[in-house]
């Protein structure tokens, strides 16, 4: 069941490659706007790079959240999935994992390029990728709660951002903090451990919250 859901969602997003690519380009464009707005001084750019890349990742992941359940909700697939005998959190976990693979992993892969643009060193780029690998699943997991709550509402995309962005703040602080520590020559491990702890907590709790929210929204 889990494998089937992941496979199905991967196939669906492969057939709509443009959506994935547009998220990726949004990420690159937002991160490239900061040097244009702030100025080309390398020192300044290096000191703001962790925050810029992380905030851009947060905003880019907002774009794909609306799609996690909305398409299935519109064509009635979601209702069928709710009726299956399998526990709902498995369905949710599968869909969230597929969303992470298609929308967040590309961001993680392109992030070192942006880091290079902003003047980060090789060592810091490794920390950036690790922090994004630990942090982006949390974005998908918490974001899926917001996506499930706003299912089928009029202004759902703006609403998701208002609901979910305040809940992203710990991830932003620890993720950008790890990269910042590495830029300043400190040990980034404490931040990464805390990020891992947040990941474990949200892995345990958020599929249940999303499942409850789906039941409320669909009934």
């Amino acid at each position, binding site marked *: 069941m889990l494998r089937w859901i992941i496979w199905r969602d991967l196939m669906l997003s492969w057939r709509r490659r443009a959506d994935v690519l547009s998220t990726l380009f949004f990420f690159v464009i937002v991160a490239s706007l900061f040097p244009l707005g702030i100025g080309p001084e390398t020192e300044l750019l290096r000191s703001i790079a962790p925050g810029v890349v992380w905030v851009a990742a947060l905003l880019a992941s907002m774009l794909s959240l609306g799609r996690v359940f909305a398409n299935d909700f519109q064509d009635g697939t979601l209702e069928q999935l709710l009726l299956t005998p399998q526990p709902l959190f498995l369905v949710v976990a599968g869909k969230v994992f597929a969303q992470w693979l298609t929308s967040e992993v590309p961001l993680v892969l392109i992030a070192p390029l942006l880091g290079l643009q902003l003047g980060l060193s090789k060592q810091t780029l490794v920390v950036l990728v690790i922090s994004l690998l630990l942090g982006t699943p949390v974005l998908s997991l918490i974001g899926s709660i917001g996506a499930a*709550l706003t299912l089928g509402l009029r202004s759902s995309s703006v609403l998701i951002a*208002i*609901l979910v962005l305040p*809940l992203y*703040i*710990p991830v932003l602080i620890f993720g950008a903090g790890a990269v910042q520590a590495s830029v300043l020559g400190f040990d980034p491990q404490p931040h990464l451990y805390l990020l891992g702890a947040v990941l474990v907590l949200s892995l345990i*709790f958020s599929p249940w919250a999303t499942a409850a929210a789906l039941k409320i*929204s669909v*009934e």
Partner: protein
Amino acid sequence: MNLYKYSSPVNFYPLAGRLIPWFAIPAALLFAAGIFVGFFVAPADYQQGEAYRIIFIHVPAAWLGMFLYVLMAVYAGIGWAFNARLSSMMASSISVTGAMFTFLSLVTGAFWGKPTWGTWWVWDARMTSTLILMFLYIGFISLQSSIEDPRRADRAGAVLAIVGVINIPIIYFSVQWWNTLHQGATIRLLQKPTIHGSMLYALLIMLAACWLYSVAVVLIRVRCIILEREQNAARFAEATI
């Protein structure tokens, strides 16, 4: 006498109407007393002069802003778990008052910060987490107001409020840690080691006044919500009593 009778919105409507004066009038009296003690009895602070007097509204507002969020989540959770309509209505009613107090504490904090710290806003851990608390309130209110079906709005709000309550400690500690990492504790709130007796009285009176005000306003608003959702039944109940 069966107290559960009042868990039905229709029965609660007239009861709330009779309770409101019992909270509203003492609130007005205590506000007057608190303002009198705060302005005329309490002495000026030796460090901050007269400017410190804003704490008499700032501190109760900040306390209520935090406490009302938890209370709102408890009401929303009860309403969701036991399918109790009145509980959910209370949660929506509390959310607006809580957001108002959080906003008030941010604004008065800025007014206090300007003369004492020389700046309107500092990225201090406590101020930052209060700002995030207000974002959470805004999320709850905007989610509820964009859902047409009231039952779905109640339940969706409950999920969001509970997720928010679980997140508040994580947010608070991460913000505090972020703050000490970046700039260190430059400014501490309430540096005074001891607080003068009359200052404490003024603070406590104002806190009680804010509490009573909250209860009164929440009851007035919950009466409006009952009227909106169960119009005919509520009018009928009022006419028969």
